[in-house]
C-alpha cells in the first residue's frame, strides 16, 4: 500500500492563491501606512511627550516645553509643504517604523504585472489536464480553433501574455506572423505599435528563459514582418501557414511530425 500523494496544485489554484496573497499583502501595507501616519501625527507624539514627562517629572520640566515647541514647528512646516524632519525627541521617539512599500494604487505609469495577474485570475481557461500538447499562441482565435482537436491552445492576449505564459507553462510558444492584421495584436511586428512589439519580444525572451521553444507560423501571403526578421534567432523553427500541430511540435523539436 502506498501513501497518498497530494494532488499538485492546478495553475488556477496557484493563481488564485497568489492573488489572495497579494491582496492580503496590499491590505497589510495599507494598515502599515495608516499606522505610520498615526504614529507620526502630532497628536500621538504630543501624547507621548506628555506621558514621558509624567513618568519622569524632573526631566519633563525641561523636555516637555522643548519637545512640544519642536513638534509644533514640525507641524507648521509640514502644513507649509516643507518636508518634515523627524522630531528629535527622546521620550517621544517611537521605534522605527518600516517604510511601507508602495501600494498597488500608488504606482503610476504602468499596469505591469498587477493587471496581468488580475486578468489571469479572472480567466476561466487555465485548468489544463495535460492529455495533449499545450500551445500558447499569439494568433487570431481561428488558429486556436483549427488546432483544438490536437492540442490545448491557450490564446495569449497582449495585456496578460507574459503572466499567462508563466502560469500555463506551455510546451511551445507559437507566434503567427499574421496576428497583427486585426484584433488584440493589431499592428504587431511592424514597429508601428511599439507596445505590441515590446510584448512579443518580452514573450520570446521569457520563453527562451524557460526553455519553451518558440515557433513562427508564416503569414498566408508569406510577408515577413520587420520585428520577426529582427527576432528570428529567438525562434526554434518556422512552419508555413496551414501547418498542423504535428508540424509545430516537429519545428519546436518536441516530437516528430
Amino acid at each position, binding site marked *: 500500500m502506498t501513501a497518498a500523494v497530494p494532488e499538485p496544485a492546478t495553475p488556477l489554484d496557484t493563481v488564485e492563491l497568489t492573488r489572495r496573497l497579494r491582496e492580503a499583502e496590499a491590505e497589510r501595507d495599507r494598515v502599515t501606512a495608516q499606522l505610520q501616519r498615526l504614529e507620526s501625527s502630532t497628536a500621538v507624539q504630543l501624547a507621548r511627550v506628555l506621558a514621558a514627562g509624567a513618568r519622569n517629572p524632573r526631566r519633563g520640566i525641561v523636555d516637555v516645553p522643548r519637545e512640544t515647541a519642536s513638534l509644533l514647528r514640525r507641524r507648521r512646516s509640514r502644513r507649509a509643504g516643507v518636508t518634515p524632519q523627524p522630531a528629535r525627541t527622546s521620550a517621544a521617539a517611537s521605534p522605527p517604523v518600516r517604510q511601507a512599500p508602495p501600494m498597488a494604487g500608488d504606482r503610476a505609469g504602468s499596469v505591469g504585472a498587477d493587471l496581468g495577474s488580475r486578468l489571469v485570475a479572472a480567466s476561466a481557461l487555465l485548468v489544463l489536464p495535460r492529455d495533449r500538447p499545450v500551445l500558447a499562441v499569439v494568433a487570431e482565435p481561428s488558429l486556436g480553433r483549427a488546432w483544438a482537436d490536437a492540442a490545448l491552445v491557450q490564446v495569449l492576449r497582449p495585456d496578460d501574455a507574459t503572466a499567462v505564459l508563466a502560469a500555463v507553462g506551455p510546451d511551445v510558444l507559437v507566434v503567427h506572423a499574421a496576428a497583427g492584421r486585426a484584433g488584440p495584436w493589431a*499592428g504587431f511586428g511592424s514597429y508601428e505599435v511599439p507596445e505590441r512589439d515590446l510584448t512579443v519580444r518580452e514573450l520570446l525572451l521569457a520563453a527562451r528563459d524557460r526553455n519553451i521553444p518558440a515557433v513562427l507560423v508564416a503569414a498566408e501571403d508569406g510577408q515577413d514582418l520587420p520585428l520577426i526578421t529582427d527576432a528570428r534567432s529567438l525562434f526554434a523553427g518556422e512552419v508555413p501557414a496551414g501547418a498542423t500541430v504535428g508540424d509545430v511540435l516537429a519545428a519546436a523539436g518536441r516530437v516528430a511530425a
Partner: protein
Amino acid sequence: MRRAGLTALVADVADPAMERLAGALERNDVKVRRTGQGNGTTAPATLLAGVLEEDGREPADVVALGGTGLLAEAARAAQLEGRVWAVASGLPPDAELLRAVPGPIAGVAEVARWVICSHERTRGLVDARIEAVAKRTAVLPLEPAGDARACDPAVLDAATALLLDRTFPAAPWPSRPRPLRVVVAGHALHFLEAVTQWLRGLPEVELRIDQVPSFSRHDEAASREHVTWADTVVCEWASPVAAWYSCHKRPGQRLVVRLHRAELYSSWWEGIDVAAVDQVVCVSPHYARLTREITGWPADKVVVIPNYVDTTVLDRPKLACAPFVLGMMGVVPSRKRLDLAFDLLERLRAEDPRFSLHVKSRFAWEVPWAWRDPDERAAAEDAVRRARRSALLADGVVFDSYGPDVAAWLRKVGWVLSLSDDESFHLAPAEGMASGAVPLVRPWPGSETIYADEWIAGTGDGAEEPVDAVVARMATRVLDVTRDGSWERLRHEAQAQARASFDVTTVCELFGRILVEDLSAGG
C-alpha cells in the same frame, strides 16, 4: 501666425539632415544662422559652445540641434530650454530603438521644444520609450527612407511650415507700446500648460507664475507683488486664491478666473468678489449656464473657452486596423462606464469578430481613493472578470498601459468612446477626433454643447432613453459606417471639427483675447 522676424540657429550643418532643416526654415522665411559647418569632426562640446556664444550675441527663436553627441551636450544647456528643436537623426535600427532610445535623446527632452523624427515609426518608438517627450515629438522628413516622399523638399517645407505655425502663433492683438504683464496663479496649472508655454514665447507678453502651494493657501506677500506688477491676472481655479485676488486687485487691472466643475459644486467660489472679476471662464456652454444658475453671477461675465488638444501631436497616419478598433481613454471612476463599452463591443463582435476594444487608463487598484471605495473596487473587479469570461469579449478587449503616449496609441484607434454618465467636457473624444478617429458620444448632459449632433448617439430631440438603446444605436452606426465605407469621410470631418474648435492654437487665441478684452458670453 508669426513668421516675420523669426530667427534660427542650426547646428551641426555638417549633418545632411540639419542642412535640409536649415533650408526648409529659410524657405519658410526664417532667418537662419548656421554653426558647425566644416568637416563634421568638431567635438560636440566645442559645437555647443559655439551655439551658446552665437545665441548669446542674438538669442534665436529656434535652436535646431542634431547628432547624439551635440544633443548630449545640449541636455545641460538650461538657457536653451523651450527653444531646442532636437533632431533625432542617425538613430540605430528599429529593433534597437524598441529596446532603448539613445540616452542623449532622452536627456535633451528636458530642454527641447520639439524632438524631431524623420519617420512616423521612429516617432512612435521615441514616444514609447521617453514619456517626457510623448507630447512634444514631430515628424519632419529629413532623412530618406523607403517612402518616396521622405526627402521631397515640398513635403518637408509644408511640414516645417505647420510646425512653425504651431510653435509661434501670433498674439491676437495689435502691437503694444510695452509687453503685456500677465500673472497666472494657481496650485495646479497643467490644464493651462500649452497656454502658458505660448505666452512665454510671445515677445508682446511678460509672464509670471504665482505658483501657490495648494488650492486654498498662498504667500500673500508674493501675490501682492504680482498685483503691483501685472496688467492681467488669470486665476486657474475659482479658489480662495482667486477670492484674495478679487479683493486685492488694482483698479483697472484685469482679473480672469477659470471655474471647473469641482469648484462649482463646492462653496469655494462664494468668497470671490465677482464685481472685481472681469470674466469667468468655463469649458462648455452647459457649465457656463450651470455656473450662472448656481452662482447668480452676471451672465455676461461667464464665458466659454473649451479645453484644447494639440493637433500637431495627435494627427498621425491611421493604421490599417483602425476601422475595427474602438478606443477608450480613462475608465476610473466607474461613471466613465467601461461596462457600456463592453456592451457595445459585444454587439459589434456578434456581427463581426474583427472589432476590438483598446482601453488606455489607470485602473481602480492604481488609484488609492478609488480602491478604498467598495463600489469602485467591485466595478473594477467585475470589469476584469467580464473582459475575460464573456465569450464575445475574451478575444476582443485589450488593456493598454496608462501613459502620455496617447497620440501614438491612437494610431490604431478608429472610433473613440465617450460613455460617461456625466462630464464637464471630456477631452478623450476631442483627442480622438484630432487624431482622425470618429467619436461615439453618449448624450451626457451638455455633450451637445461641445460636440456636433452627428457624433452623439441620442434621439436627436433631446429625449431621454434607456442606455441600452443608446448603445444599440452606437452599434448600428459603427456597423453601418464600416459596411458602407464612409468611415474615412467621417473621420476627416471629425478631425476638421476638432482642428477648428479645440486645437491649441485656436484656444490660445481665445486666451490671448481675454487677457485684454471681454469675450462675448454668447460663445
